[in-house]
């Protein structure tokens, strides 16, 4: 708990109504999705509650954030920035940290229609941004975590592959100019912003430090606070006016003309892979994803646990390895072209489109959910608890290797009865930038209410990590914190030593919560000579 001097100092910056040290308020920030897994990794009970912050402060602008950071430096207190917050890394990583909740900074500052970018604050959500940019015939990238997530946080501080990544890329690649409050309290402006040239570029004129600032998975609050950024926008072929009929839970989306959804089923990986390469070459679709197995299809396209179970039982083992492609074209001509391309690919690769053959009719609302990046949230339908393993972005071949490796490990833990039985198959992959590379992860459902299930999930995740290392399957999701970086760094060009140098250079007082990033290290480990 902070003392009265610190509290008074914080209150002078943001007003007493925007500072809280009440445990009831603090616990709402400690409660995080997958907190139980992180607690188990730290040898604690599998509670969803992580550490409480010492205080929560709600700044409303960059100047207030600078003032808070300076107070933290003065009183030797750590701070952690928090925006929409999803996952353990949204919480403080240990005791002695003040959490800055950025929810008051929720403005879309500008949408530059001509140059196709938007300037946003930390608490602007994907849904908020998309609704506004679609009015101008544009679309934005949203991570698969859903439309409730902050594009700024995803771009500056984490990663984020989404359902439309085939044409909207992924969060780190969409980042343009950035306003960054460093752990010292100073402001650093990156890209074109640093030379007063506007927000259009992350790489200049001016310093380009995106690699330093975020690296592969972002610093997750370990390098200061990102207060504004510009993100790329993309052309949107359809109307901003989404016509939804019906009432909950029976919504019907009036699928716009020139839209079509394919679910192309293959009996094996070989033909599925062949089709993926062809789709990538053809550069069609606004969503291209690959899944496998009936449970995976059932959970993606159902809207209740009953619907999901019914689909699993009714489809049986029909569904094998499948590719989902959504086409949304600008014109009849483009639509005709893309559908012809798809039909040719299906024919040549021996696939079966489950939609056109009537085997499975996806609900119309799923089309809208695809574009809204809502399909990922379906993973919570089965037990309210899931987490992904692996999680890499590489070539199509590498991505499929991951999916294959994951199946074997998953089956072992299904047999142990600690994770839900999805036949071992459920994995999700998405094309990034027209299949020039591909993301693959393996969502796995467990039961947060059962200790043995949580413990089994941690063991399963560890085994997946080991397989990543042994089989060179890339760096997975959530390599966060010292322990994981020490584990992976020596196998990956000692990157962790460089990461530590960055932390030491930008945060000499170690004031920005480094628990989800990397801590300043000893002289030995920080020596670049050993790299």
């Amino acid at each position, binding site marked *: 708990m902070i003392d009265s001097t610190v509290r008074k100092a914080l209150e002078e910056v943001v007003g007493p109504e925007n500072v809280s040290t009440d*445990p*009831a308020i603090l616990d709402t920030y400690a409660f995080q999705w997958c907190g139980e897994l992180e607690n188990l990794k730290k040898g604690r009970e599998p509670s969803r*509650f992580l550490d409480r912050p010492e205080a929560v402060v709600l700044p409303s602008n960059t100047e207030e954030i600078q003032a808070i950071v300076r107070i933290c430096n003065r009183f030797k207190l750590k701070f952690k920035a928090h925006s929409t917050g999803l996952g353990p890394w949204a919480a403080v990583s240990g005791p002695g940290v003040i959490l800055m909740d950025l929810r008051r900074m929720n403005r879309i500052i500008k949408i530059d229609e001509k140059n196709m970018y938007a300037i946003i604050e930390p608490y602007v959500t994907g849904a908020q941004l998309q609704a506004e940019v679609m009015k101008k015939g544009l679309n934005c990238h949203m991570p698969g975590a859903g439309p409730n997530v902050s594009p700024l946080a995803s771009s500056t501080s984490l990663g984020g592959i989404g359902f439309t990544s085939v044409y909207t890329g992924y969060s780190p690649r969409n980042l343009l100019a950035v306003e960054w409050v460093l752990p010292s309290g100073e402001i650093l402006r990156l890209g074109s912003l640093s030379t007063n040239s506007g927000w259009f570029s992350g790489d200049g004129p001016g310093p380009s430090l995106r690699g330093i600032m975020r690296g592969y998975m972002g610093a997750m609050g370990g390098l200061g606070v990102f207060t504004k950024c510009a993100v790329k926008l993309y052309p949107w072929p359809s109307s901003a006016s989404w016509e939804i009929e019906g*009432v*909950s839970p029976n919504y019907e989306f009036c699928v716009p003309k020139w839209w079509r959804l394919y679910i192309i089923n293959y009996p094996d990986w070989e033909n599925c892979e062949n089709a993926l390469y062809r789709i990538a070459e053809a550069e069609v679709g606004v969503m291209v994803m690959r899944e496998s197995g009936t449970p995976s299809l059932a959970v993606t396209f159902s809207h*209740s646990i009953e619907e999901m179970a019914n689909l699993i039982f009714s489809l049986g083992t029909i569904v094998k390895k499948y590719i989902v492609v959504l086409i949304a074209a600008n014109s009849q001509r483009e639509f005709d072209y893309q559908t012809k391309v798809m039909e040719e690919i299906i024919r040549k690769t021996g696939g079966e489109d489950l939609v056109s053959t009537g085997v499975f009719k996806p609900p119309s609302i799923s089309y809208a959910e695809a574009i809204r990046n809502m399909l990922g949230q379906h993973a*919570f339908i089965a037990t*309210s608890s899931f987490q992904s393993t692996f999680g890499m972005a590489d070539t199509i071949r590498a991505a499929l290797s991951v999916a294959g490796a994951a199946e074997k490990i998953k089956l072992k833990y*299904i047999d142990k009865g600690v994770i839900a039985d999805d036949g071992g198959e459920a994995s999700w992959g998405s094309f990034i930038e027209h299949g020039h590379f591909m993301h693959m992860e393996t969502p796995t459902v467990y*039961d947060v209410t059962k200790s043995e299930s949580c413990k089994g999930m941690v063991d399963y995740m560890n085994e997946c990590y080991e397989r990543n290392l042994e089989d060179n399957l890339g760096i997975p999701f959530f390599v966060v914190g010292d322990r994981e970086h020490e584990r992976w760094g020596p196998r990956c060009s000692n990157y962790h030593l460089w990461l530590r140098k960055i932390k030491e250079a930008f945060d000499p007082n170690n004031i920005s919560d480094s628990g989800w990033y990397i801590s300043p290290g000893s002289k030995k480990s920080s020596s670049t000579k050993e790299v």
Partner: protein
Amino acid sequence: MAIALALLKRRLEYTNELLNVIYRCSACGGCNVSCNYMFGLEPLEVIMELRNKCVEDGFGPMPKHREWPDYIREKHNPYNEDHEKRIAWMQGSIEWDENSDLVYFVGCTPSYRRVEIARETARILNYLDIKFKILYPNEYCCGSPLLKTGQKKEAIELMKQNVKFFKNAGVKKILTSCAGCYHMFKVEYPKNLGTKFEVLHTAEFLDNLRREGKLRFEKSVNLIVTYHDPCHLGRLGEPYIPWEGELVEVIPGVTMPIPPKPVRYGSNGIYEVPRNLLKSIPGIKLVEMERIREYAWCCGAGGGVKAAFPDFALWAASKRIEEAKSTGAEAIVSCCPFCSTNFKDAITATGEKMAFYDLTELVVKAMGG
């Protein structure tokens, strides 16, 4: 949800701020609408249980709410008004028939605070020569203020007393012009006591009469209006369907309720009926706000908020008034005496040029006053 779990896990001690958080919710059920979709989660149930726990542990409800059990026990209403004044709204001009099997359950707020609603409802019934009776002196508070603030024990006692009154009076059909009473009789009484009375809100009753041709509108009411869905008539007015079953592991690691549990999505509340009535009044132009039906923004008065946090209640209403203004409406129309009070207070406090009418008031105008 996090706070409820933290309290259950004994991570939290009771503090003023904890109680403020728990009781600053107007229990509007908007959270249920969002979380029931796909996930079958019912946060409102958790909030209500949290309030019950606060009271059981001796920390809740808020000071203002603590006055209510005594008021209701002694005077049968939460306003501490004399029971004899419960029928003062009639002003001797309303006729009722003790032999009718239709009971008009007036409710405390229309009886004491929004008497125009009670009066106009009764005038319409009298004008249309529809026989009804009222239960006075055996009309007591429906129990909503107690139940919604976690004073469940007292609420259930009161509800049981009311059921006795209904049975003694041979009640089969209850008509009410209060959305709060409607929710209680439609949902909470069946859920907690298993009652099966037919319950109708005035809006439903009048629209039935309109469709049967018994209610006709002769006069034009030239007004641009927007309709505010009361939470207790809308998303919380959806009928309660009992369920008995168990959680079964249908797939290894995945359990679900068997038989499937009926989910109250909030979509089956009373939404069309008041709109149909408004649209049938000559001269009325109905314009819609952005957030309507199951997604309506709460007026801010419910769940004991108006009593314990009046400023917050006014703020919520003022936001809704802003939204109403953006439609070009001259008046907000609703069907809830509690919304009525809060909107009228907010209009006064903000100085907005916005009128408020209960639906019955416009019906009377259209009938020729």
